[in-house]
């Protein structure tokens, strides 16, 4: 013990504690539920593309009053059935020529419409197809969005109430849904439209009225699970009212289901509107929707295929975009299904 090492105090150097503390620090900001979902959604390329397409369609449809080149309802019989003409493009199908008896004829010259430009051609009354598609998309989207909003409001309320109450009330409400669900949706829609008289309003009501059951069932099933959670018990113990628990605790936890289901409801509402207009009990002329345009176009499909192709493409692209976007949202909100 003789050769004890004597170290003076100043030969020690305090370690910088801050570096150590930082090892536990979370550098990234805390993400809320929505931010987290958005982060995952952004990584999904097809969903982002679908979202962009949808935004563009919404902008084009709701800006139709500004950007549409012609009045969609202006009838010009002398310019009827003109094919699409893109200025400066010389490809058959886009240069204003038509196939007549085996040779291509300049339909614009025949109709003395030399200076007029109809990007997507005209219909049988000489109305500009592009403008009609823009206005038609607006009507289709409006009907679908309003119907979905009503469906959402009603379905969520019904499902929440049924699941929260439980017991006899729940049982009765579920039987009611089962009865409604065992009537084919389209039959309900058709009967409602007949009673309400065809038109935009009645289509919206009919679609909303017949499609809320799926939402109500989903919400009810989830509510049954959620109401057994401890935070709900805690809230009840603290004396929160049922309404407050529904808004503060249940709805936020149901939001992902609601958003995903909404995204799947909108395309089905678009489909229903198009379907009804197509069979002739939907939107009535001179108003146009994608369904009525398809119906008009289909009559001349053999000779003027563009009159059906363009509305069909627009309708299909919107439907595809909604479905892809909804898929992406589902994966973003519920990453487990993707794994």
């Amino acid at each position, binding site marked *: 013990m003789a050769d004890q090492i004597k170290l003076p105090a100043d030969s020690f150097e305090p370690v910088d504690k801050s570096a150590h503390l930082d090892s536990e620090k979370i550098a990234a900001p805390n993400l809320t539920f929505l931010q987290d979902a958005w982060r995952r959604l952004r990584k999904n390329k097809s969903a982002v593309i679908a979202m962009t397409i949808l935004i563009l369609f919404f902008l084009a449809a709701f800006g139709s009053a500004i950007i549409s080149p012609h009045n969609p309802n202006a009838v010009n019989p002398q310019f009827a059935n003109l094919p699409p003409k893109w200025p400066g493009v010389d490809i058959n199908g886009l240069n204003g020529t038509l196939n007549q008896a085996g040779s291509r004829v300049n339909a614009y010259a025949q109709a003395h419409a030399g200076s007029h430009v109809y990007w997507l051609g005209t219909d049988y009354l000489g109305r500009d197809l592009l403008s009609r598609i823009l206005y038609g998309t607006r009507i289709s989207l409006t009907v679908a969005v309003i119907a979905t909003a009503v469906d959402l409001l009603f379905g969520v309320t019904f499902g929440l109430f049924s699941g929260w109450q439980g017991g006899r009330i729940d049982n009765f409400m579920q039987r009611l849904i089962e*009865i409604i669900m065992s009537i084919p949706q389209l*039959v309900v829609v058709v*009967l409602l439209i007949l009673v309400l008289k065809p038109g935009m309003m009645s289509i919206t009501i009919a679609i909303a009225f017949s499609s809320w059951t799926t939402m109500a069932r989903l919400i009810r099933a989830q509510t049954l699970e959620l109401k057994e959670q401890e935070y709900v018990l805690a809230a009840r113990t603290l004396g929160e009212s049922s309404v407050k628990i529904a808004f503060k605790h249940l709805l936020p936890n149901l939001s992902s289901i609601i958003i995903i289901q909404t995204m799947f409801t909108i395309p089905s509402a678009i489909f229903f509107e198009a379907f009804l207009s197509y069979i002739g009990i939907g939107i009535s002329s001179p108003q146009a929707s994608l369904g009525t345009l398809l119906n008009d176009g289909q009559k001349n499909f053999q000779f003027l295929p563009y009159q059906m192709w363009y509305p069909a493409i627009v*309708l299909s692209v919107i439907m*595809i975009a909604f479905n892809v976007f909804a*898929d992406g949202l589902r994966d973003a909100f519920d990453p487990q299904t993707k794994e």
Partner: protein
Amino acid sequence: MAKYLAKRIFYLLLTLFIVITVTFFMMKLLPGTPLTNQAKLSPQEQHLILKQYGLTKPVWQQYLLYVVGIFHGNFGTSFQFSDQPVSYLISSRIGPSLLLGAQAMIIGVLPGILFGALGAINKNTWIDSGTTIISILGISIPSFVLAVLLQYYVGLKLGWFPIADWGGFSYTVLPTLALAASPFADTARFIRTEMVDVLNSDYIELATAKGMSKWGVIYHHALRNSLIPVVTIIGPLAVNIMTGSMVIENIFSVPGIGEQFVKSILTNDYPTIMAVTIVYSVMLMVVLLLTDIVYGIIDPRIRLTGNSN
């Protein structure tokens, strides 16, 4: 089981009764009579025609007669076709509709299962992307657009199948294909999700660990277990096919009840509309009941008890 069945059949009849009542009173709310040329008829003649259709009695009596009539297979007389009983219209037209529906269900569901399984087995590869794209297209493209395209390109341009009308098997090909697109896509998506789930489960891992071949695992364990829930979507698929049939039958001029329904709507033929509504509801209810029973039989984990689960 017997108790469960009795309960289900009771609900089925209750639902049927509600459907009949609601459609009856909805139709009574609507204007429109079987009289085609009202202005030219004297009041006596009008009264006579209305009496022939049983429209002069008070509404509640008409209702009772209607309900009693239905249980005797009498749906009243069509407004559109004079003196044609609605029950005849329907019974002569239901055959083509059922045939098309059954064909579309088979043509849609079987390849749908194959596609969905292929996608799940090859998850996150180009095969998966390919099957996903096809099924998204199938869901998104409306059946009536597809029908017109098939009619023009396959029927008229290629001339492979008749473009319209009703005859032998070849006449059913195009309408069946147009109808089958949506059930096909729905099944493919459903099976893919189910099978991805099943492939992640412990018993698949065990089967692989004990040295079973890849395809043995897929066939004996994965596919079989993912097939069971398919039964639950048969009901919704049937609804899709019924919806589609209304417009598809119209496009291809198939003499089915869907075509009749659309015609009756456009001509305000209320007795026919009511009857077709009831027929559609009965078909859907029977399909739902059958699928529930089959589900209970093939999956012993599901108990058919009074529980609503």
